[in-house]
């Protein structure tokens, strides 16, 4: 008998860091030194705030490079980085550094943003709290998935995997313990960054319904 699944949720208090950049070189220097919570914030904020508009999580770095500096090729490169391929914030940070270093090593003159449009580095302090749901079996789990908040879904899929260093999302880890390896593998295989949060909820529920 495996342990029940305890649902949690999370909220971020956003911190404005004393760091801003006006060109790609300064952005690179910032990415090298800001705390992990800053890299996480700038690559995940869009998912929570604009989930109803677009499934694509234009990370803040890519958005600024494309829309403010108008360096569209570099913006696309940074924007299309597959966050799901990185097991930790440390490696994701290195992924950005690699692309930006290649760009700055080419010696092209760095475009400077208009005054007032600098990239402002932010970070977040994350508070994790229990949600009022516990699932003891797959049926209960599926029913609870329909009613948890978007923040709770976000926590178990995104935050748990990359920020808390659990390697996989919480749902797949529990489902494996429950002996539902096929469902677990299908959920692990999803690229959650290409769904809106509601779309992701529906997809996970449909996987459970199909395989059960």
């Amino acid at each position, binding site marked *: 008998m495996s342990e029940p699944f305890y649902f949690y949720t999370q909220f971020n208090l956003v911190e404005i860091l004393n760091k801003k950049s006006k060109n790609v070189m300064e952005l690179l220097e910032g990415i090298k030194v800001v705390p992990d919570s800053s890299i996480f914030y700038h690559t995940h904020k869009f998912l929570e705030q604009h989930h109803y508009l677009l499934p694509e999580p234009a990370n803040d770095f890519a958005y600024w490079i494309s829309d403010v500096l108008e360096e569209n090729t570099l913006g696309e490169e940074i924007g299309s980085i597959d966050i799901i391929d990185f097991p930790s914030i440390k490696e994701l940070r290195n992924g950005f550094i690699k692309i930006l270093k290649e760009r700055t090593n080419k010696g092209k003159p760095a475009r400077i943003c208009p005054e007032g449009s600098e990239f402002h580095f932010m970070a977040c302090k994350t508070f994790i*709290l229990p949600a009022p749901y516990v699932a003891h079996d797959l049926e209960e789990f599926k029913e609870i998935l329909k009613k948890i908040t978007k923040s709770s879904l976000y926590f178990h899929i995104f935050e748990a995997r990359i920020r808390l260093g659990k390697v996989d999302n919480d749902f797949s880890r529990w489902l494996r313990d429950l002996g539902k390896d096929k469902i677990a593998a299908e959920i692990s295989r999803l690229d959650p960054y290409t769904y809106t949060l509601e779309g992701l909820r529906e997809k996970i529920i449909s996987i459970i319904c199909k395989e059960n």
Partner: protein
Amino acid sequence: MTKLDEYRKIAGDNVIDELHFLASRVSGKTIQNINSTAVGGGVAEILSRIMPLLKELGVDIGWSVIKGDEKFFVISKKIHNALHSARVEITNDDLNYFLDVNQKNAEEINFYGDIIFVHDPQPAALIKKREKIGKNWIWRCHIDFSNPNKRIWSFLKSYIEKYDTVVFSAPTFGRNISTKQILISPSIDPLSEKNRDLSAKFIDSVFEGYGIDREKPIITQISRFDYLKDPIGVIRAYRLVKKHIDCQLVLAGGGATDDPEGKKVLKAVTEEAKEDKDIFVLHLSPASHIEINALQRGSTIILQKSLREGFGLTVSEALWKAKPVIASAVGGIPLQIIHRYSGILTHTIEGTAYWIKQLLNDPEYAKKLGENGREHIKDNFLITRHIRDYLLLFLSLYYKKDIVYL
């Protein structure tokens, strides 16, 4: 008075239950808000809404207002404008008077809170009291700090850096200071008189009362009469539109008790608008919330053409009513509007006029902008999110790590 449970229908049961959980973790701490006015203006308005709800959640929270004479409020208004980068003359005597009034208040106020939550520049120098009484101090800045007057910022900075935490409404307001800086957007209350649903009959009666024709497009800007809201620029944009489309302009707003400049601006706006029967300049009392609600709901397009803006709550109010909004890309407005998805961001009078024409000629697109805007406000700018952020802010004073398990 609105009860917390009434928000369940709008925000969802989970959201309210989470607030109860967070509030239980703040239990045992007393929070004391301090600002400069009890009536009028965005700060007093939001405190009036948030305080009762926090109390209902069991948070021990109070509110003190500093005392000052007209001279103090004239000086503090000049400081406010200078921080918004307006050119104003502030003498050393003015600054000394400002400090004297703060000092006098520091002696008279009973600082009963464990957390002293000071709002805006007027009472910022109360922090000197900390040397004697200790406690946790937060300074909440509600104004646009993107380009403050250097001398005045330098004056204020020496006080701000003594706080434990500073709260700004937009990332661009962040300063190069040693104090921790937190981003908290303000919010609107969907159940307040300014935002709750209204009957079509009531909306009609408000427009009828002011003699505004509902058959012709209505472009409206709601804001107090202040140069920083650029009411003259709004009239000029309207005139560019009027050459091609027959429409009406409504400029409506009230005044706060700490805003002596309002009368001067109202006079200038009235003169600029004279002889055009399709321009309606409405000077409303600070309590005219329901009329403002009706004016927003009955308008075709809402403008917020501010030159500087703390946050621009009127944008959230209009978007909550699913109205197409055209607003300047200043202060906190870009947080509320994603250009061409949930509203329109402009930088000039001509750009504003261009987009007014576009939206008047393409009502389907205008409708979609409004619908997206409402969804964005529902998720990010309602009072329930604001209360949650404040609870997290209070908790952050006691939990120092990046990841906190409650």
